[in-house]
């Protein structure tokens, strides 16, 4: 038997999950979404050094190598229909936490309004991982290279969580505190994500750099969002999120502030990309060196800004 012993609870509604989390508050409980990370983390390791999985984790951190303490209870979220689906209304786009990554890649709504997220979803793992993995799970795991987390930060997403104490909303950019660490309290869980729906004059893009095209964790990744002024020349708002260059997704605030209010041009994007590299705090690990990452943040940021601009202009 590869997996340790645990008891599985399969609630049908969000309120049942809240009740179970409150009831089991003194036990070792884990939420089971797609299982593509959780079952890997809790299975007994054959080799002690089996799979260091976390890009951006300091090598001395005990986070990636030591198998997680096996949970006594797993609360499976896969039978809760309230947590599934992608919805759009007048002003917002809402994505249920248990929406699979494949559903994101196939959704017209995501493709139309949240281009960066569609690209991130499409580059995550492999088709088999995408079929099981969920956006809620990918974000709750809070890996600094997570392919839906970086776009969600760039797109200024809001993470909605529930618990027996009520609901609260957390901005995606302040959700992670470290690799695998989040601001979630022990009884809280993600129910859905909300994104603002812009009318037009906006575009977003995401790109990751990796050694392979599939089953790969980013060496670095960048997501960007641009909102243009009415004449399409000025940048009303810019957001740039960097992946795998720090313990959490990083907002390139210097680059964002620099872009805001300027007219878009090649030279402006070049300068912003240089600033983004200064915002990055990468380390050297088995995926790449610090120096290479810094160089590549600049290159990929420029590409992603160009892509986002192209999408913004094309929309009009």
């Amino acid at each position, binding site marked *: 038997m590869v997996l340790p012993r645990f*008891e599985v609870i399969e609630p049908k509604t969000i309120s049942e999950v809240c009740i179970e989390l409150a009831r089991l508050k003194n036990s070792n409980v884990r939420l089971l979404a797609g*299982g593509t990370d959780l079952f*890997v983390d809790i*299975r007994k390791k054959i080799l002690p050094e089996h799979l260091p999985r976390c890009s951006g984790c300091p090598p001395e951190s005990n986070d990636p190598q030591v198998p997680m303490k096996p949970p006594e209870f797993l609360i499976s979220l896969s039978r809760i229909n309230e947590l599934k689906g992608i919805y759009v209304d007048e002003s917002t786009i809402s994505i249920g936490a248990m929406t699979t990554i494949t559903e994101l890649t196939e959704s017209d709504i995501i493709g139309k309004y949240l281009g960066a997220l569609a690209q991130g979803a499409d580059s995550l793992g*492999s*088709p*088999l991982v995408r079929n099981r993995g969920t956006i809620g799970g990918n974000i709750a795991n809070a890996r600094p290279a997570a392919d839906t987390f970086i776009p969600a930060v760039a797109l200024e997403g809001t993470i909605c969580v529930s618990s027996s104490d009520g609901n609260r909303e957390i901005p995606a950019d302040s959700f992670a505190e470290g690799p695998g660490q989040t601001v979630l309290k022990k009884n809280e869980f993600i129910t859905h994500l909300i994104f603002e729906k812009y009318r037009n004059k906006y575009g977003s893009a995401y790109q990751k750099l990796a050694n392979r095209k599939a089953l790969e964790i980013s060496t670095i990744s960048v997501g960007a969002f641009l909102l243009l002024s009415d004449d399409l020349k000025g940048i009303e708002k810019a957001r740039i999120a960097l992946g795998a260059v720090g313990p959490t997704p990083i907002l390139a605030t210097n680059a964002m502030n620099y872009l805001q209010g300027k007219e878009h041009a090649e030279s402006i994007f070049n300068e912003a990309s240089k600033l983004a590299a200064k915002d990055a705090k990468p380390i050297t690990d088995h995926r790449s060196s610090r120096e290479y990452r810094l160089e590549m943040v600049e290159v990929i940021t420029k590409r992603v800004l160009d892509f986002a601009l192209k999408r913004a202009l094309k929309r009009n």
Partner: protein
Amino acid sequence: MKKHITLNVNGKDHELLVEDNRLLVDVIREDLHLTGTKKGCGIGDCGVCTVLMDGVPTFSCLVLAIQASGSEIVTIEGISDGNDLHPLQQAFIDHGAVQCGFCTSGMILSSLALLNKNPSPTEKDIRKALSGNLCRCTGYQKIVDAVLAAAEIMRAEG
């Protein structure tokens, strides 16, 4: 504690008592004796344990058996028509796409899901759909050729 589940595999319902922590792949292989589904890395990298869960290619090594209760599972044993091989199976043989054979069941099931969704895939579509199924023998070209050929036969058969 064991739980009672009904697992629908290849169109047949199986009433089973399983421990919470048993993986779908283990139940398929050890309880149902359907050993065409292989067990490889166990961590969702290699794809040899692929089965179709409600038509979707799924790692059976990362799904608990109790999670699969209520879903329709198809394994490699379920795609031929009696002794008549499925066009994909025949195409894999004809094109030399089976060498050691360990990846083959996963490859065929991922290909089948692709062809059900997209009957006329390009080579790029096939390579992308199979990017989660690793093969260390063939270099993939023969597999891609086989899927392209099977797609043509399946289109002709309607």
